[in-house]
């Protein structure tokens, strides 16, 4: 029996606009006093009207383009009608038939994961259950939300995790969303079923959508549970279809505490949201020029940066780390400048002491070039280089100046090293004896030499000198 999971993802991202999607309340709702960021519009008071946030729309177009979507030149909002206490108007302003962006894809590990759409909508308020009551906080109601829907092209938990990370990364690169899963500004609802190949037959299990997942780690756990559950259910009940299921999916909620999914809504009851075009908001028409202008604002994205860094000689892992955060990547690129041959060495400097929240202004490429050149000439040891680059960043001094001031230049004076080596050998007779038995234990003696020379000895020369003396 061969089991292939078929997974589709629905991702919601809260945009980090200053104001809400359809009113001028602040959109920064995290941990604010309940209902302190509301107004008659986002509370759905009678007679109030929505006016769309221009920035939110531009950012949706931008994200859509960054995800390789096609922008619909004619687009409009629609009302998604349903009742829930945290939905003030009794409908959510969203999109369906003509979303801002359609199609698109991401390449994950050589697989093309297709996207169905990237559209814009408003968030609901929050329900909190306390003492048998439902307490409602509408601070979040009306915050702009981007919805990204993938096709069911994901086939493993690994790919799901990478897909979500990439979306998070791109959103942060564009600076349109914090995409913080712990804070709830990025949410994910997977839909999963299994394709089961047994002997010559192919079976499909029914579609299940999983809700209430609060964390990237939980996505994997929930999917893992559900895949196993479906497999068990198939084996036990042989309830299957021999063609891919059409529409009608069951909703199951994820219980993180119990680590299981449980039934929420019966399969046959498909929600009827009665979508219709939002009459309070005129439609949108985007010219080619306008779309192109937005496209020009998209910075170089991670996948291109990785290609560049690989060309510069970094390996895949290094390239991924260096490109993970956009600001960090820009600092790295600034430090490299046109000296791409030094890129790998410069990367090492970043990977050690320089933390992630760097100020691009403070990166001076000359400092990096000088330091690497000195390193390559063995004037400085790698250890020292990592020390002084941090200090150089913090103080704005050329690292070589710092090295000079604090006498950190590497000691490559053979005679001097010989003297120190002789002292080390004299002070460590046991280590010498160990070396006679096992030449690979020379590391200890080298370490001692480094210690005595306060880290300034050239480690390769130190080894050479010691080995000579020990002959």
């Amino acid at each position, binding site marked *: 029996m061969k089991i292939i999971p078929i997974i589709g993802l629905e991702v919601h991202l809260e945009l980090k606009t200053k104001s809400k999607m359809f009113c001028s309340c602040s959109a920064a709702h995290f941990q604010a006093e309940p209902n302190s960021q509301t107004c*008659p519009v986002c*509370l*759905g*008071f*009678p*007679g*109030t*009207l*929505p*006016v*769309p946030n221009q920035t939110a729309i531009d950012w949706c177009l931008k994200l859509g383009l960054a995800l390789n979507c096609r922008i619909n030149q004619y687009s409009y909002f629609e*009302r998604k*009608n349903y*009742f829930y*206490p945290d939905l*003030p*108007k*009794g*409908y959510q302003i969203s999109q369906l038939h003509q979303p801002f962006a359609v199609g698109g894809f991401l390449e994950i590990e050589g697989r093309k994961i297709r996207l169905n759409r990237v559209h814009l909508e408003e968030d609901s308020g929050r329900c909190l259950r306390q003492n048998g009551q439902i307490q*409602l906080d509408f601070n979040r109601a009306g915050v702009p939300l981007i919805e990204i829907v993938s096709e069911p092209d994901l086939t493993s938990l690994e790919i799901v995790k990478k897909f979500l990370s990439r979306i998070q990364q791109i959103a942060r690169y564009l600076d349109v969303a914090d995409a913080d899963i712990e804070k709830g500004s990025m949410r994910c609802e997977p839909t999963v079923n299994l394709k089961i190949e047994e002997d010559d037959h192919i079976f499909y299990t029914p579609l299940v959508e999983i809700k209430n997942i609060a964390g990237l780690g939980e996505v994997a756990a929930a999917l893992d549970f559900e895949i196993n559950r479906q497999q068990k259910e198939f084996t036990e009940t042989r309830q299957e279809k021999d063609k891919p299921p059409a529409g009608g999916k069951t909703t199951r909620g994820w219980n993180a505490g119990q680590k299981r999914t449980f039934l929420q809504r019966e399969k046959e009851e498909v929600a*009827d949201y*009665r979508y*219709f075009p939002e*009459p*309070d*908001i*005129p439609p949108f028409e985007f010219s080619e020029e306008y779309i192109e202008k937005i496209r020009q604002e998209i910075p170089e994205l991670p996948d291109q940066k990785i290609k560049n860094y690989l060309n510069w000689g970094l390996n895949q892992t290094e390239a991924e780390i260096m490109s993970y955060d956009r600001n960090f990547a820009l600092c790295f690129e600034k430090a490299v400048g046109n000296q791409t041959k030094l890129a790998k060495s410069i990367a090492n400097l970043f990977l050690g002491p320089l933390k992630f929240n760097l100020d691009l202004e403070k990166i001076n490429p000359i400092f990096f070039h000088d330091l690497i050149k000195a390193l390559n000439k063995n004037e400085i040891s790698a250890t020292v280089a990592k020390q002084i680059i941090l200090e150089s960043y913090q103080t704005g001094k050329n690292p070589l100046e710092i090295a000079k001031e604090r006498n950190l230049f590497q000691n490559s004076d053979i005679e001097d090293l010989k003297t120190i080596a002789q002292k080390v050998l004299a002070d460590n007779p046991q280590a010498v004896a160990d070396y006679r038995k096992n030449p690979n234990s020379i590391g200890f003696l080298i370490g001692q030499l480094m210690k005595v020379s306060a880290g300034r000895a050239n480690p390769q020369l130190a080894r050479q000198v010691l080995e000579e003396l020990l002959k």
Partner: protein
Amino acid sequence: MKDEINAFITLIDHPSPGIPIAIKDNICTKGIRTTAGSKVLADFIPSYSATLVERLENAGFSIIGKTNLDAFAHGSSTENSDFGVTLNPYDHQRLPGGSSGGSAAAVGAGLVDFAIGTETAGSIRQPAAWCGVVGFKPTYGYVSRYGVIAMASSMDCPGVIANNINNVIKVFEVISGHDSKDATSLSLPPFRFKQDRLIDGLKIGIPKSYLKITAPEVLEKFNQVGDIFRKLGHEVIEIEMLDPAIAIAVYTILQSSEVSSNLARFDGIRYGQDRRYFNPENQRRILLGTYALSADSYEQYYIKALKVRTLIINDFNKHFKNIDVILAPTTPTTALPLGSSLDDPLFGEYADQLVEPSTLAGLPGITVPCSLIDGLPVGFQIIGPRLSENLILNLALQYESIKN
């Protein structure tokens, strides 16, 4: 002021100084109870005013009260109000029309000179005709809908009710013009009236199909209006427009669909009472709209109606290439007796059929009183292309000055 006809739901004890004006009670007034004629909002006091109300107050008008209406503007009689029916000032045994019945009756009874109404399908023009006053509905989007409790968002139009054209103009100039709080409001400054003696003479079209459904006695009075316009130097011809029954179907589907959604916010959690307090007419419209939008019916009803709406708009546009304005009776009959609307779920459709097509197309229109039949007022209406307010008002003024 003694309100014998129940034109007002709320009367202000000590109104601020200024020109008295009455506001239909589906328009939010800060600090003043706003009920929409419904028990659901019986105790609702908004903390904000509609933009049009703010503009009126800034221009020196003073709100003296909130007028009666069919609950949530669902109706053409004011009999669907949860606060009792308003009586027609000309005959207290008859209906004032609706849904702006309170506003029309208040002006007709001389309780106030100016009133604001709203029209989604004749709700200004029809009661104004039955109460013998001038009722004016501008082009959709000319007056901001912010703060106007929504019925059918793509059609709702606040407008003016008064005793004469000049008073209508006075108010319209104040409340019209772009509002950034309403995304459907036109990008125009407030209307400014320019007198035009129309010396070249206009070409006026009378839709034959509208005449077919008008009662004979009303038709007789209406024909006199046509004659007057001819004497004024205008060419008056008959034109062939789409059957009003088509507009009725389109209007009913689109309006109830939007209503079912617009009334979803009334759940009693954040304000007002819960949904058990909707009256039967409200319930009917919500259910009808829910039905028209539901998955099984959506294509056949809602989408179809949107497309036929385009045909209705095209029909008007086609005719307006050849004529300047449309002239027609405002209502098929004079005011009907109290109780007429109660057993008939199609009451509104019948009463409004001469005004529904123009509302669907967002066109401006005005009703002007022209005569009496057995002591009951008769009105005629002028409908113009979009943004032809100046033309319509000038033509109406011409008629008025001749009549006087």
